[in-house]
C-alpha cells in the first residue's frame, strides 16, 4: 500500500476561553489601565485576531511597580514556609490546567501542540515545583541571613517559550522573596495573562505578581523606572545591550539571557543515526525559535556526505502545518516580522554562495511559515554562519580535527550552548572543556531541567537561571 496519509488529529480549542481584550494584572486583580492604546494579538498560523492587549504607558508601569513595592512589604515578611506553599499551589494548578495552557500557547505562539503539551507545560510545572522546594531552604544553603531579596524585579520575557520563560523568571524570584513586574512579549501575552488568573485562583497575596502587557516602549519604561531593584531579561543581544547601558551607574541588579549561535559538533565516531536525530531536534525544535538552538552543524569532513544525505532524508519527514494538529512537528513562525528576518538571512546565505536544501512540503495559505532549511558549502565568514537566524535554518560547516572543531565552535560572539556527538567519552570531556558555552550537551540536545543552571558566555549574556545558581540571581549580599 502506498500513500498512507495521517488524518488530521486536531486538539480542540474549546477548552480555552479568550477574552475580547485584556487588562493589566496589578495588585491582585485585572485593572483598567491608563493607556488607551491597544494592539491585536493574532494567531501566527491563521492570522486570525485572537484578542486585544494594551500597550502600557508610564502611568501603568508606575502603578505596577508601586503595587509590587507594597507586595514586597508583605511577601518578604511572609515566612519562607508560606511562600513555598503558595508556589506549590501554583505548580499544582498549572498541572491541573495544563491542557488549557498548552492549547492557548499553540494558538497564540504557533508552536506545535506536541511541544507545548509534552515539553513546555511539564517544564513550567517542574520549575514551580523545584523552586517551591527551595523557598524554605535558602538560609540553610548559604549561611543564614547573609542574602536578601532584591525587592521589585522587572522581568521582560521573549515570545519563543512564553509561559516557560515566565516560569523560569517568576518561580525563583518568588521563592527568594522578591515581587515581580512581568512583561510578556507583545505577540505572545495570552498565557501570561491566563497565569495571572491562576495567581488569583491560588490566592497569592496582592501585588506579588504583576503582569502588564506592552511592546519595547513598555519594557524600556520598566527598565528605567526609579523603584525597580533588579531587571531580568531574556531576548535579543541588541536589546540586552541597550538595557545594560540604561542601567549603568544605577544600583540595579541585572541578568541577561540573550542570543546564541550554537555549534553542534559531530565527530566521525558518533552514533550517526542518533546524531541525525539530535541535530534535527537541535535546530527544528520550536521552529528554531530557540536561543540555544544548535544552528551551526559542525561535521567532520570524513562523514560529511553520508551525514548530509541522512539528514536531508530525515528532514523530509518533518510535518509542517497546523500547530494544533497532534501530528505536526513544525508549526508557524511566530510573527511576520520574524519571518521577514529569516527570509532575509536565507537570501543572503544563497547569494553568499551557500548551497540550500529545503524540504518539499506544502505550506498552509494563511499564517507565517518557513520550510525546514539546510545550508551546506558554507564558509565561516557568511552571515548565515555568524548571525542568529532564530528560525528553522541549519548551517553546515566542516572540520578536520578536534582542535579545529573547537576553534570554529568558539569563533562566534555568542556562547550559550553547544553539542558534542561521539561515542568516545574522553573526547566528549576534552571537547566540552574547551567550548565557551554555558551548556554543553553530549550525545543529546535541548535537554532542560529546573535543577540545571542555564546561561551564557560572551554576548549571550550573564547570570544563570535554574538550579542553586539561579536562586543567586535573585539574592544579594546584605549591606
Amino acid at each position, binding site marked *: *500500500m502506498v500513500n*498512507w496519509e495521517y488524518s488530521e488529529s486536531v486538539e480542540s480549542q474549546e477548552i480555552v476561553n479568550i477574552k475580547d481584550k485584556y487588562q493589566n494584572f496589578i495588585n491582585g486583580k485585572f485593572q483598567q489601565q491608563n493607556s488607551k492604546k491597544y494592539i491585536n494579538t493574532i494567531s501566527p498560523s491563521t492570522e486570525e485576531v485572537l484578542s486585544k492587549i494594551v500597550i502600557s504607558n508610564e502611568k501603568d508601569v508606575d502603578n505596577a511597580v508601586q503595587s509590587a513595592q507594597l507586595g514586597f512589604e508583605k511577601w518578604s515578611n511572609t515566612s519562607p514556609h508560606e511562600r513555598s506553599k503558595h508556589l506549590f499551589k501554583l505548580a499544582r494548578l498549572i498541572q491541573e490546567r495544563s491542557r488549557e495552557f498548552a492549547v492557548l500557547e499553540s494558538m497564540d505562539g504557533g508552536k506545535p501542540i506536541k511541544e507545548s503539551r509534552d515539553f513546555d507545560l511539564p517544564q513550567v510545572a517542574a520549575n514551580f515545583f523545584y523552586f517551591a522546594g527551595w523557598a524554605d531552604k535558602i538560609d540553610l544553603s548559604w549561611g543564614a541571613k547573609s542574602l536578601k531579596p532584591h525587592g521589585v524585579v522587572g522581568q521582560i520575557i521573549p515570545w519563543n517559550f512564553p509561559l516557560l520563560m515566565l516560569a523560569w523568571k517568576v518561580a525563583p524570584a518568588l521563592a527568594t522573596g522578591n515581587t515581580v513586574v512581568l512583561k510578556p512579549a507583545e505577540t505572545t501575552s495570552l498565557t501570561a495573562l491566563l497565569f495571572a488568573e491562576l495567581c488569583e485562583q491560588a490566592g497569592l497575596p496582592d501585588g506579588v505578581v504583576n503582569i502588564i502587557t506592552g511592546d519595547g516602549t513598555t519594557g524600556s519604561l520598566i527598565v528605567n523606572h526609579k523603584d525597580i531593584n533588579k531587571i531580568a531579561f531574556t531576548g535579543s543581544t541588541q536589546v540586552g545591550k541597550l538595557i545594560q547601558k540604561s542601567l549603568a551607574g544605577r544600583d540595579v541588579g541585572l541578568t541577561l539571557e540573550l542570543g546564541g549561535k550554537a555549534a553542534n559538533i559531530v565527530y566521525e565516531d558518533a552514533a550517526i*543515526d542518533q546524531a541525525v536525530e539530535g541535530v534535527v531536534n537541535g535546530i527544528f525544535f520550536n521552529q528554531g525559535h530557540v536561543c540555544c538552538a544548535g544552528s551551526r552543524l559542525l561535521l567532520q569532513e570524513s562523514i560529511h556526505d553520508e551525514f548530509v544525505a541522512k539528514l536531508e532524508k530525515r528532514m523530509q519527514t518533518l510535518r509542517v502545518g497546523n500547530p494544533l494538529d497532534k501530528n505536526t512537528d513544525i508549526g508557524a513562525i511566530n510573527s511576520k516580522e520574524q519571518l521577514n528576518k529569516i527570509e532575509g538571512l536565507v537570501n543572503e546565505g544563497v547569494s553568499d554562495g551557500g548551497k540550500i536544501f529545503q524540504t518539499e512540503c506544502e505550506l498552509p495559505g494563511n499564517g507565517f511559515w518557513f520550510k525546514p532549511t539546510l545550508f551546506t558549502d558554507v564558509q565561516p565568514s557568511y552571515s548565515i554562519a555568524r548571525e542568529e537566524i532564530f528560525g528553522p535554518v541549519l548551517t553546515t560547516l566542516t572540520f578536520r580535527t578536534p582542535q579545529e572543531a573547537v576553534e570554529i565552535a568558539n569563533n562566534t560572539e555568542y556562547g550559550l550552548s553547544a553539542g558534542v556527538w561521539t561515542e568516545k567519552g574522553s573526547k566528549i570531556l576534552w571537547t566540552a572543556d574547551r567550548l565557551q558555552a554555558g551548556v554543553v550537551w553530549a550525545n543529546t540536545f535541548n535537554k532542560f531541567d529546573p535543577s540545571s543552571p542555564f546561561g551564557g558566555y560572551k554576548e549571550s549574556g550573564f547570570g544563570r537561571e535554574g538550579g542553586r545558581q539561579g536562586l543567586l540571581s535573585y539574592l544579594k549580599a546584605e549591606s
Partner: protein
Amino acid sequence: MNNKTAALSIKWEDILELVFDSRIDSVGLNERVDSLATRSIKKDSKLDALNMIVSMCDLTTLEGEDTEGKISQMVAKAITPDPSNLDIKNVAAVCVYPSLVSIAKEKVGNSGVKVAAVSSYFPSGQVPMESKLLDTKYAIDSGADEIDIVINRKAFLEGDYRKVYDEIVALKEACGDVHLKTILEVGDLKTYENIRKASLISLAAGSDFIKTSTGKLSVGSSRQACYVMAKAVLDFKNLTGISAGIKVAGGIRDSKDAIRYLVLINEEMGDEWLTPDLFRFGASSLLDDVLKQIKKLKTGAYQASYYFPRG
C-alpha cells in the same frame, strides 16, 4: 538483482567493516522511538492502517499440541478473517512447524495465503548444521512458500560471526527461490549493537527478511529492535541496492501497538515498505483485536470476542 546473487557479490570483508562500525546510542534511539509513538492515527488513516495490518499478518501456531484440526481452523481464519465483513481480505501467511506444512498447504489451496514453516530447529537452533539443512529441506519439499530460520546465537555470542553467516548462506542455498526469513531472536541478543550486527550479517547472507523473535521467549519484539533493524536494512540497501523485509513477532497483541510499528516503518523507511512483501507481523492474538477495531470504526461499538471465529 535478487538476494541470491547479492550474497555472492558482497564481500564478507565489506560486511564485517559495517558490522564492526555498529554504533548506537540507546538513549537517543529510545527517545526517537518514543516520539514516533506519539503520532495520533485516527479516522481514515486508522482504518487504512488496520486493513494493512490484516494483510501483513502471519497467523501463527507453533506448539507441540498442534494438530490437523488446529491447522484447519487457523487456515480458515487466515482466508476469511471476519465472515461478517468480507471486505477484509486474507492475511499474508500461516506459520507452522515443518511436519504440518503439507496439511496447511492443502488447506490454503489457491486462496493466496502463503504457508511459512519455521525450521533449522526453531526455536533454539542448537543442533548440527546437517540437521538444520534436513529440517529446512523437509519443509520445502512439503511445499512451504516461506522458511523462517533462527540464527546461531551460540556462534554469535561467542563472536564467531563467520559461522553465523555461513550457516545462513547454506540455508539460503537450500531454499533456492523459497522466501527466507531469518530470526535474530533479539531477546537473546540484548543490546542494540548486537541486533544491528546480526541484522547486517543475516542480510549479507541473503535473507529476504529479517525477523525479530521466535515468540518463545518472554522478551519478544520491541519497536526499538524494529527501529535498529530498519536502519540496518536501509544501510544495506544503500550498499547493495537490495530492499529486504522486516517481520516483527512476539508480544504484539493490540492494534495500537501494531499501528505504532507501521508509523515507525512509514517514517523511517518510507511507504514503499508498507506492503506484505516487505513488512509482516507474526501474531496469533493481534488479528482479533484488529478485527474488533475495524468493527468499531464501522459501527461505533466494540463487539465481544465471541462474534469473531476462532483461529
